């Protein structure tokens, strides 16, 4: 077990691809750190540098304060679970689990003991003499875990270990991995591109984009206080609602002016002093779906048109359109692109029509008209504001 520090770590591949830039990240002893981000953002590269499988081209990597840049994978004392498990197909389950111990020259009877214990923990005892080919996906996943937990490595590394499982098994294994990590207390670096997985598993989450760390923190922290538009758009499902507006400070307090009307924020918004710098500038407004409500009450409201209602007890999702410019900043587009190509198309279409999509998440028994106009109310205190040019958070 160890404390892992990335100190200005970077990676430039031979073909010139700068996969990771100036990564500064500390993983505390025993902590479960999840690295998440869209495809190609450098997650695997960061993980493989920690494993010693990819040479570090810039900066230093420290284990418990000692630089390990020059240590090869076999000398770093880490354990890794691969995306496709990389189980040795010609070895039985027990030989697979025993391999890391045998490689380190452990005595036979101790190996047998440890393998038995690991198999027991993972419920693999009755499969010990099978070959990987004769196992189900979930069992293979467990064997891969077994190969990692059978010894006490300083660091667990996992690269999308659940991506090859179906949804149900994935939920189950997610819980199992968390349980194992907590009982073993091994520092863990876990890579995924699934933000739900990240939110549920990590003690802390590090979000990357284009090789650059965007923000690291506890899941709740990232959800409530995204540092920039990218993190805001990436974390949360359904995603944070975003639209553009001009921020103005008037005598009656700050207001947001959209093409569809003016929203009075009032003193409840409690904007920080630096928001003044953005007076008369375009900002991106962010509102979580659960922070929108119907009916009368305090706070500003948005004139929306209901297009679709999805019932997902105990809640329902209202898909609406409002008259406000859709932000097409590169950060928003990048998140949409990671979802799929049609998401980018939708975004562009909305931008051309000068409208924005808003999703509201309400209790399932809220009375709602089938379609048509609707007032969506929000608490200005829950509002996120981002600089429209660089996407940095204002509030």
């Amino acid at each position, binding site marked *: 077990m160890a404390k892992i520090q990335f100190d200005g770590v970077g990676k430039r591949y031979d073909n010139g691809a700068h996969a990771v830039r100036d990564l500064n990240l500390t993983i505390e002893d025993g902590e479960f750190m999840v690295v998440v981000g869209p495809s190609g953002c450098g997650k695997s590269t960061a993980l493989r540098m920690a*494993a010693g499988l990819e040479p570090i081209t810039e900066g230093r990597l420290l284990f418990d304060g000692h630089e390990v840049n020059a240590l*090869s994978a*076999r000398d770093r*004392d880490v354990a890794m679970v691969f995306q496709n498990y990389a189980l*040795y197909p010609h070895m039985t389950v027990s030989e697979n689990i025993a*391999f890391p111990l045998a490689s380190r020259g452990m005595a036979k009877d101790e190996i047998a003991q440890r393998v038995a214990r690991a198999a027991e923990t993972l419920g693999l005892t009755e499969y010990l003499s099978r070959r990987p080919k004769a196992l189900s996906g979930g069992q293979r996943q467990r064997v891969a875990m077994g190969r990692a937990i059978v010894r006490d490595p300083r660091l667990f590394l996992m690269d999308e270990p659940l991506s090859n499982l179906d949804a149900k098994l994935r939920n189950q294994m997610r819980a199992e991995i968390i349980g194992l990590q907590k009982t073993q207390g091994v520092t863990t670096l876990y890579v995924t591109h699934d933000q739900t997985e990240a939110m549920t598993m990590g003690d802390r989450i590090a979000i990357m984009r284009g090789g650059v760390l965007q923000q690291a923190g506890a899941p709740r922290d990232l959800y409530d206080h995204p540092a920039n538009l990218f993190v805001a758009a990436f974390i949360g499902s359904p995603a944070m609602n975003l639209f553009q507006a001009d921020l103005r400070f008037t005598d009656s307090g700050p207001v947001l002016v959209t093409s569809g009307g003016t929203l009075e924020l009032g003193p409840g918004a409690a904007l920080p002093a630096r928001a003044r710098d953005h007076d008369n500038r375009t900002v991106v407004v962010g509102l979580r779906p659960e922070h929108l409500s119907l009916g009368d009450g305090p706070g500003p409201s948005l004139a929306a048109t209901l297009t679709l209602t999805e019932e997902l007890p105990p809640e329902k999702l209202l898909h609406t359109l409002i008259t406000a410019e859709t932000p097409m900043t590169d950060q928003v587009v990048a998140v949409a692109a990671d979802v799929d190509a049609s998401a980018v198309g939708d975004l562009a279409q909305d931008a051309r029509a000068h409208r924005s999509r808003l999703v509201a998440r309400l209790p399932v028994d809220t009375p709602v008209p089938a379609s048509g106009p609707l007032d969506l109310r929000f608490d200005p205190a829950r509002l996120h504001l981002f600089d429209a040019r660089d996407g940095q958070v204002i509030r």
Partner: protein
Amino acid sequence: MTRSPFAMYGRELGALALALLWCVPFYYLAIVSLKPTTEIFADPVGFPDRLEFANYAEAWAGTMGVSLGKAMLNSLIVTVGSVLSVILIGSVTAYVIARNGRRMGTLMYFFFVAGIILPHQLSVVPLYSAMRQIGLVGNHLGLIVLYSGLMTPMSVFLYSGFVRTLPADYEEAAEVDGASRGRIFRMVIFPLLAPVTGTVAVMVGMVVWNDFFIQLIFLSGSPAQTLPVAIYGFVGEFSARWNLVFAAVFVSIAPILAFYLFAQRQLIQGFTGGIK
């Protein structure tokens, strides 16, 4: 598909006729060795009147002090030795080629594979005179060394095609698991190469077991002489006695034929593996 019964029948008839034609040499291979000497040319076509198993006893003694049993053992030693060493050299080398980057890998690949096309008839002359000087003519070791050299391109070629398709994951997993380079190759890579190792073993084994040109040059007249050389010498001595010649020929073919019948599917696949 609808096909007239006549067309169906014709196909089977054609196949049967060809099969019978193909069987002719096998028929003689089976019966001539069991005929008494007097009957061979009196009735070259028909079955023997009585089975003369003594032919085999006589043939087994061989010529020039080398029994067929001894020759078979010699062939076995040379074949097994060559196969093992070619497997070792080919697998390691193909692994290096596949893992050393595009440019270096391609360069080395052609350096090795060029050796497949060059016929060894030209190289054998200088190799013979060089190996004679260091005492590698007339013994097993010399032939094993020679075949290892000559068959290396073929095995590198066969192994390379496969190693290239091996994902690096297994090696990376093994490295994280703390295995040394030697251990990674021995415990992970080499076992994964098993299918090609089978093909290489069959191909090299068959070439070496059946090769005559080189064995004739390097072993004729030596106590280390292999089956083809022994049969050649035997025929030279007993050319008039076809029953003995056939007994010897049968003995020399039997092991590989038995192996073929036992593993024909894998063996044919070994030959045709490259065709899609």
